[in-house]
């Protein structure tokens, strides 16, 4: 479904992503783990089209999307939960969802809204509330819900657990597990390695903009050396 080939992202003279390649099949969950500044967010943003790659190629559903505008990628089925949630702060919860559901027909939008309100009942209670007045956890829920109500085929999630209390982190990962059971293809960037490895089918470890290690979670967890050197667990 997604192929990333030799992706490079630069900000001026600084190279944030340096020749990253990986692929993701339909229904799989790939976790990209690594420390702060490893290049995870830049990789995800390049796939969504929020930053322009310096070089490399991104192919989604057989189409080269490397230079495609973000809104066209969204129409193709790529959706993102950005780092820090970033809901449309001056719009209500329901308006945030309506914006994301503009590109699907009304009946489908209604069905998806009901689905996300079932996933996040707390959002249903706060439909008319401005997003900026929500708590950190609720904003993250809204960010996930907003990413799900569109025509999503590939869900990109950037640090969904960042800044949340442990109970909410567990809640978020339960949602991710549920989405996985529903066969949604997901790309997850996480600093919470332990949690990411529990849900992932494949893992890429990033360091200084490059993938230094990749494999099945269990293979990585079996090696004490790898656990200490790269995963910090």
């Amino acid at each position, binding site marked *: 479904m997604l192929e990333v080939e030799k992706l490079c992202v630069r900000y001026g003279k600084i190279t944030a992503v340096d020749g990253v390649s990986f692929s993701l099949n339909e229904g799989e969950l790939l976790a990209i783990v690594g420390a702060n500044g490893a290049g995870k967010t830049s990789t995800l943003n390049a796939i969504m089209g*929020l930053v322009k790659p310096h070089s490399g190629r991104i192919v989604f559903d057989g189409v080269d999307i490397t230079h495609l505008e973000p809104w066209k990628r*969204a129409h193709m089925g790529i959706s993102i939960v950005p780092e820090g949630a970033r809901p449309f702060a001056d719009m209500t919860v329901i308006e945030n969802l309506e914006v994301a559901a*503009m590109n699907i027909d009304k009946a489908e939008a209604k069905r998806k809204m009901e689905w996300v309100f079932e996933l996040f009942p707390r959002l249903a209670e706060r439909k008319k509330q401005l997003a900026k007045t929500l708590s950190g956890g609720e904003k993250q829920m809204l960010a996930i819900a907003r990413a799900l109500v*569109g025509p999503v085929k590939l869900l990109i999630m950037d640090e969904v657990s960042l800044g949340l209390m442990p109970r909410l982190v567990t809640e978020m990962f339960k949602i991710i597990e549920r989405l996985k059971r529903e066969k949604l293809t997901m790309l997850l960037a996480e600093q919470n390695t332990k949690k990411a490895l529990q849900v992932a089918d494949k893992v890429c470890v990033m360091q200084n903009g490059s993938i230094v290690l990749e494999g099945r979670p269990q293979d990585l967890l079996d090696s004490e050396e790898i656990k200490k050197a790269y995963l910090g667990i």
Partner: protein
Amino acid sequence: MLQNIVNALVLGSSYVMIAVGLTLVYGILKILHIAHAGIYAFGALFAVYLCEIGLPLVFAVTLSLILSALLGMIIYKGFYKHVLDRGRIVPLVMSVGLFATMEDLYRLMWGPYKRPFDVYIDLPDVMTMDLYLSSRGLLMLIVTAVVIVLLYLLLMRTKLGKSLRACSNDLGLAGAFGINTDRSVAFAFLIGSSLAALGGILVGLYDNTVYPTMGSVPSYKAFVVVVLGGFGSIRGAVVASYILALVETFVVYYFGFLLPRDAIAFLTMILLLMFKPEGLFGKVRR
């Protein structure tokens, strides 16, 4: 007292028309579109020209609004769009240059002198013991009220309005949710420019005068309104327009010998910013 309030409402309405478009553009692109005032003047000058060559007022106004809207979009597509990634100073300098060029072009096209906007308005003058409101003032109040309601409905109830608000909240991210941000920005320029032109026409009608530099003072005033309202807040711009007009009118009425009207506007802005730096409805920036 009543007369002063009505005068302030008329003056505030003229500020609303120009400031709302400026706010719309600032809210999305975060640039100060000074050339907006050039469109304000163009709308009035072109409508007068069309009336002079014999077109009925309604057609002249409609044509002028359409052309002004297109002019706004050309400014975005032809100029700003190419420098948006170069910080805020480059588009600002470009905007000032565009405004100066537009004023000079108007002088070349229509001459440097004041021209009357001499048309018949089919509305009555309002006259009571303590109030006089001309038909042109009444027209300004009615049109502005209709525009405010329509703009509210557009922004709150339509897909386009929600797209514009999403872009205003986070332009970078709006595209990731399927919004064609370039098209949304172009629409913001279309709407904002036609409102500025309408403002120019209404002021031209009210003062019965149009001239190439008629946008100069409104450009400063609109800037004050945008700052007072809180950068990017449409609601703030509307409220700030009327507050500013009320302050100006009453201060000029009671203390007119102290300061000219424009100085009062800037003094109000400075005082408010000292106590509420984010403006009336703006977000706190840290």
